[in-house]
């Protein structure tokens, strides 16, 4: 297996404030990796650094699918096959649901599944019911579904999901997990930032613990649960 | 986690967290410098200096709205104009003594601010801006067309000795004093709970309302305060030139004030002051140096904005020269 994504010693900052000071992360092809950690430790920032969203990478390497991402603009990163679901959803408020889904640049997915609008509607029937509604007035959970659906249409090789279950009713959250599992079977690699690790336990391969802008531990999910000390040290509220 | 901190410790921490501080090390030399320039240079420099001082107040009053209230006004000249005309008409039409007229000018401006503001704060963002523009244009037109009362487009001239008959230098000192006090008052307001509420209302009206703030009322208060201080500036300007013209309430002056605030630095108390200094200096020197002054001024503006996208105050803060430029 070759690494789909490999990040080494990543440093990144917002303006003058450095938020990441040494992230090391590898995602093998077809692997699902989970980022966990307290609030504000840099999980979202790590994802943003990969797609160059708002944050400036100041050091380290990000290699995706065999090529460095250095110097690329966000849209170029995405066109190489990185899909991104931001934590704050960022649906296009004044566009209808359907129009939101037409924004992503259609790509040819090769041997991966070629997601189209009909297929994401199958995944989230509620979106189909409200396809003409303006995204900005949708409920929080509905927006979350839309955000996930939208990113699927870019047919990514690597999908970055920042707290994908947030705001979803348990039943829908469950469906999202099923979808993630399905995507994984199709060979899509994923990085998922998740607070409630148990939700994702079923499909995650490995876990990275982030603390104060650094990756401090990684290992299998079972390995994580086997060592309660890790959770106590890095996940407890201080 | 922390043991409850000592009250003075708390207040020390608070003031370090909420600082729009006056950097006395900068302000006092600046005041002295202004006075020295005033006393040692020629009459036209004195006039220019006086204008810069007046516009520092005008721009700062707009800055209260823009940087702190997040209310972008495209019609702030209306209150400058009302201040000037309120004063002028009080002298010419009502025959009031100067002392009373001087007060009446800013009060008229504040009243105008109350009237227009009550309408404008019902709107937000660009629509707020556009309604302020409409209000200013209406003010301008009234001043422009109401010949019998305002003298129409030719304005009111020659009704009194300019500068109350003071020498240029003495009037400059007087202006400096009045404006310094006014700016201090503005600064006080910004730092007070009222100022905090104004900022809160501007940044997220829904959050502020949910906390119990009647956003429109706060914004109207800010609007009236800004109009009042713009009125002081207008009144001073009318005294300086001994005349009043509808242009004082015109679009040109509004644009000037906007440029000043933005150039000087949004989100900074000193922004209006820096802006007035820079823009007025440019406006005074560029036209007398080159015939194509608009071209040159345009290019200079472009260069400034592109090199200092956070305004001059931002630049100063970046160089670490000034604590006032902080946020």
């Amino acid at each position, binding site marked *: 297996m070759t690494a789909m994504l490999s990040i080494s010693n990543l440093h990144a900052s917002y303006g003058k404030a450095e938020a990441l000071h040494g992230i090391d992360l590898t995602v093998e092809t077809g692997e699902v990796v989970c980022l966990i950690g307290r609030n504000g430790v840099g999980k979202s920032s790590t994802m943003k650094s990969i797609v160059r969203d708002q944050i400036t990478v100041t050091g380290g390497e990000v290699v995706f699918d065999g090529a460095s991402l250095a110097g690329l603009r966000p849209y170029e990163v995405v066109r190489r096959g990185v899909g991104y679901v931001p934590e704050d959803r960022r649906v296009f*408020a004044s566009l209808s649901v359907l129009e939101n889904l037409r924004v992503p640049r259609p790509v040819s997915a090769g041997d991966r599944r070629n997601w189209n609008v009909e297929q994401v509607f199958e995944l989230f029937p509620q979106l189909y019911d409200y396809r003409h509604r303006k995204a900005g007035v949708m409920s929080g959970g509905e927006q979350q579904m839309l955000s996930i659906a939208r990113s699927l249409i870019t047919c990514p090789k690597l999908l970055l999901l920042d707290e994908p279950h947030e705001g979803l009713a348990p039943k829908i959250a469950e469906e999202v997990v099923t979808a993630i599992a399905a995507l994984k079977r199709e060979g899509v690699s994923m990085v998922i930032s998740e607070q409630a690790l148990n939700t994702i336990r079923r499909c995650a391969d490995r876990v990275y613990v982030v603390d104060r802008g650094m990756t401090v531990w990684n290992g299998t999910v079972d390995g994580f649960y086997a060592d309660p000390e890790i959770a106590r040290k890095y996940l407890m509220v201080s | 986690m922390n043991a409850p901190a000592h009250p003075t410790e708390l207040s020390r921490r608070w003031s370090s967290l909420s600082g729009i501080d006056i950097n006395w090390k900068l302000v006092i030399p600046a005041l002295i410098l202004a006075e020295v320039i005033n006393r040692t240079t020629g009459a036209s420099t004195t006039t220019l200096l006086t204008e810069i001082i007046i516009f520092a107040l005008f721009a700062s009053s707009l800055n209260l709205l823009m940087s702190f209230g997040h209310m972008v006004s495209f019609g702030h000249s209306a209150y400058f104009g009302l201040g000037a005309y309120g004063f002028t008409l009080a002298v010419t039409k009502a025959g009031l003594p100067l002392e009373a007229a001087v007060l009446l000018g800013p009060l008229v401006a504040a009243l105008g601010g109350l009237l227009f503001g009550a309408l404008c704060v019902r709107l937000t963002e660009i629509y707020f801006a*556009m309604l302020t523009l409409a209000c200013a244009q209406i003010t301008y037109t009234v001043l422009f067309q109401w010949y019998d009362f305002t003298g129409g487009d030719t304005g009111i001239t020659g009704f009194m000795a300019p500068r109350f008959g003071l020498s240029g230098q003495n009037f400059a000192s007087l202006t400096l004093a009045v404006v310094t006090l006014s700016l201090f008052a503005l600064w006080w307001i910004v730092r007070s709970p009222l100022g905090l509420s104004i900022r809160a209302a501007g940044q997220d009206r829904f959050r502020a309302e949910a906390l119990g703030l009647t956003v429109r009322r706060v914004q109207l208060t800010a609007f009236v305060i800004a109009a009042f201080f713009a009125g002081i500036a207008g009144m001073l300007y009318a005294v300086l030139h001994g005349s009043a013209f509808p242009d004082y309430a015109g679009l040109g002056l509004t644009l000037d004030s906007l440029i000043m605030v933005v150039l000087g630095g949004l989100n900074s108390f000193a922004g209006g002051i820096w802006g007035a200094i820079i823009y007025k200096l440019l406006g005074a020197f560029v036209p007398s140096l080159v015939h194509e002054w608009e071209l040159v001024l345009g290019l200079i*503006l472009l260069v400034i904005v592109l090199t200092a996208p956070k305004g001059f105050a931002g630049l100063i803060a970046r160089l670490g020269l000034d604590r006032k430029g902080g946020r």
Partner: protein
Amino acid sequence: MVLIQFVNGLMEGMTLFLIASGLTLIFGVSRIINFAHGSLYMLGAFLTYELVQILAPGTLWGFFASVIVGAAIVSLIGVLFEVTALRRIYGADGLMQLIVTIALVLIVRDVVRMIWGPNSITVPMPDALAGAIVIGENYFPLFPIVVFAAGLVIVLAMIWVIYFTRAGILLRAGTDDRGMAALLGINERMIFTAVFAAGAFLAGLAGGLSAPYGEVNHLLDTTVIVSAFIVCVIGGLGNLYGALAGALVVGITKAMGVMYFPRLSMVLIFLIMAAVLIGRSLGRQGGSAR
């Protein structure tokens, strides 16, 4: 009389729409208040003046060709401006962008003055359009009717592009959140440049088309920009249908105002604008309150 006045209003309304459409387009997508819109309009008029002389003065094709070529040049100038100046400060406060466009106003005005002098120039009216349709005692001048038709074509084209094509969806997506558009694989800079090109083209087109019908001089920019703003604001900035409605309302009210409120000539449109703004209640959508 009332009828003719109404027609006059419609005609002026369409001219106003032509002027405002580019402004509202640019604002709609980039949230930039392009103060230089009037300057681009003015450039369109002056370029048409030059081109008509080179091409075929007085002829219909010569006029339209000049207008279109002129608008294309204006569009290039717009792109140049966007790429060299505006693009560099998209991250800064929106007001910075306003100042940049004000700087452009100053520059263009002086350049125009240096090239064409301060006096007005006259763009010859194509002979075929100089006349009028006379019905009984009523004259309906031909030229504005042609401008009206051109305006209609442009409205329909713009509405089609913006509301019914993917390009339009991308434009509007870019408006809502340009960063997010990029994160879905869209080259958002291209969108903005394209929009600026289109907006500048429309400004140039409006300038060229109206040139023979009024005076052309280096002061055109200010008058144009103010009316364009008003129209956009009445219609709701960024909203094309609104701009059309706003333009027609302003045109017609102005024309009728001459008959019924002659003393209000200067403020009338500002009064309309104020009334519309006040009338429009503060939109408290559910979305923003959750």
